[in-house]
């Protein structure tokens, strides 16, 4: 029986879909069998980020409504044979499925795969309730902005109210330079407010935009700083104890990048 992990944030645009794509690909890189489930019905993106848009025949709603079999709704990834995507429907909306149907779907997928990653839509309504319905574990994505942290806080409250204890925090798009100047919320501030375990910090990286547009997750790119951060996060999800990147450094860029991964934060 696999693990169902929901990736959520409350606020839109903080990087849920990018995170789902990268963590999913990372888990596949580690040899795990993984399925990515796009729960953002009506605004599907995960297929685009994965570069699999042109392969879609059936979608999540078709599977739930039993228009097709479970296997038919799955798209095999271009690069990894052990990575699959179940895309959202684009012509329907969130009310097309119920939390009960999602629970059954994730349960069926968890029997086939080691990891089921659910990409949650923004918001706290039906779509969010669908996304968390079958999950046993949750990752909350936020950026170092007051509004994103506020929404993450709300989401953590809702997750805990729905018996998803111990959500883990992923802070996305940290700008090293801005944090150093004191212009950006730092990691300690965010962790202090949200009071949950930190899964990882992903630095802001232009490479992400490039790879997202190309449909190739940054995690496979060895040169990408964000990719490195995602590789660390994947190892932490698998239970390894990987030290956090240090951000408080005054070194030049090259030494910083070279040394940045070797530190324990506290």
């Amino acid at each position: 029986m696999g693990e169902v992990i929901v990736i959520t944030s409350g606020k839109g645009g903080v990087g849920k879909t990018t995170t789902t794509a990268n963590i999913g690909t990372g888990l596949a890189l580690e040899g795990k069998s993984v399925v990515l489930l796009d729960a953002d019905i009506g605004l599907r993106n995960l297929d685009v980020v994965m570069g699999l848009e042109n392969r879609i025949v059936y979608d999540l709603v078709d599977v739930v409504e039993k228009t097709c079999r479970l296997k038919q709704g799955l798209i095999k990834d271009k690069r990894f044979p052990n990575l699959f995507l179940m895309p959202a429907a684009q012509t329907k909306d969130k009310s097309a499925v119920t939390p009960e149907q999602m629970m059954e779907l994730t349960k069926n997928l968890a029997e086939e795969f080691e990891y089921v990653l659910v990409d949650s839509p923004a918001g706290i309504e039906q779509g969010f309730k669908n996304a968390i319905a079958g999950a046993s574990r949750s990752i909350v994505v936020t950026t170092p902005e007051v509004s994103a942290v506020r929404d993450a806080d709300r989401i953590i409250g809702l997750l805990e109210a729905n018996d998803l204890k111990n959500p883990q925090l992923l802070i996305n798009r940290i700008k090293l330079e801005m944090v150093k100047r004191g212009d950006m919320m730092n990691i300690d501030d965010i962790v202090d407010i949200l009071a949950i375990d930190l899964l990882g910090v992903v630095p802001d990286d232009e490479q992400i935009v490039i790879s997202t547009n190309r449909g190739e997750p940054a995690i496979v790119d060895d040169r990408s700083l964000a990719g490195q951060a995602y590789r660390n996060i994947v190892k932490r999800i698998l239970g390894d104890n990987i030290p956090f990147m240090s951000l408080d450094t005054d070194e030049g860029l090259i030494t910083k990048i070279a040394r940045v991964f070797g530190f324990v934060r506290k």
Partner: protein
Amino acid sequence: MAKNEIVFKGTKDGLHILLKGDSSFEEFKNMLDEKIRPSKRFFEGAKIIGFSGKSIREEEYLELKSIIENQYGMEVIGDYNTLNVSNSYDIEEKSKKYNEILETRNSVEEKGLFIRGTIRSGQFIKFNGNITIIGDVNPGAYLEAKSSIIVMGIMRGTAHAGSDGNYDSYIAAFRLEPMQLRIGDIIARSPDGGPYKSGVPEIAVVKRGMIIVEPY
């Protein structure tokens, strides 16, 4: 006349007057006057929490009380039944009893709600009594109590104490950095440009119709 037939005993709650010996009530009155009048300013504002030693009658007690309050500017706490007179010299025991009475002057007897954990954005806690949070209250969270609110952590949200109009309610926190505080129907908001951070435990109370935040 032996002046030491009247003895003042100080306790942390106020002065206790001990009437020693067998002098008459009139003599005691004179002795008291002799003792207090020369240092009237020293005694002004002092609290008398009781008499002991020679037993006095209620009329005498009231007379003493009126003299002490009107002529000397001191305050006598309580009334004849609760405070006055025993023949015992055991002030210790007496003042213990008064302590109990005194404490209720600053205390609220209400039901209490204790919550351990972080109160997050969108969470609304309403309770018909006192609320105590052992943990932080985050921005966007809302607490409403009929009586007072204590946050043993960082108070960053909105709190409404004395929701049925009780201005004696208060809001206290280890760190009081709220969005907004309300006591009764009075509303105070944090200064623009982010909450002020004092770094010490503080309490918000109502004084002269305004919410005042001060260290406690």
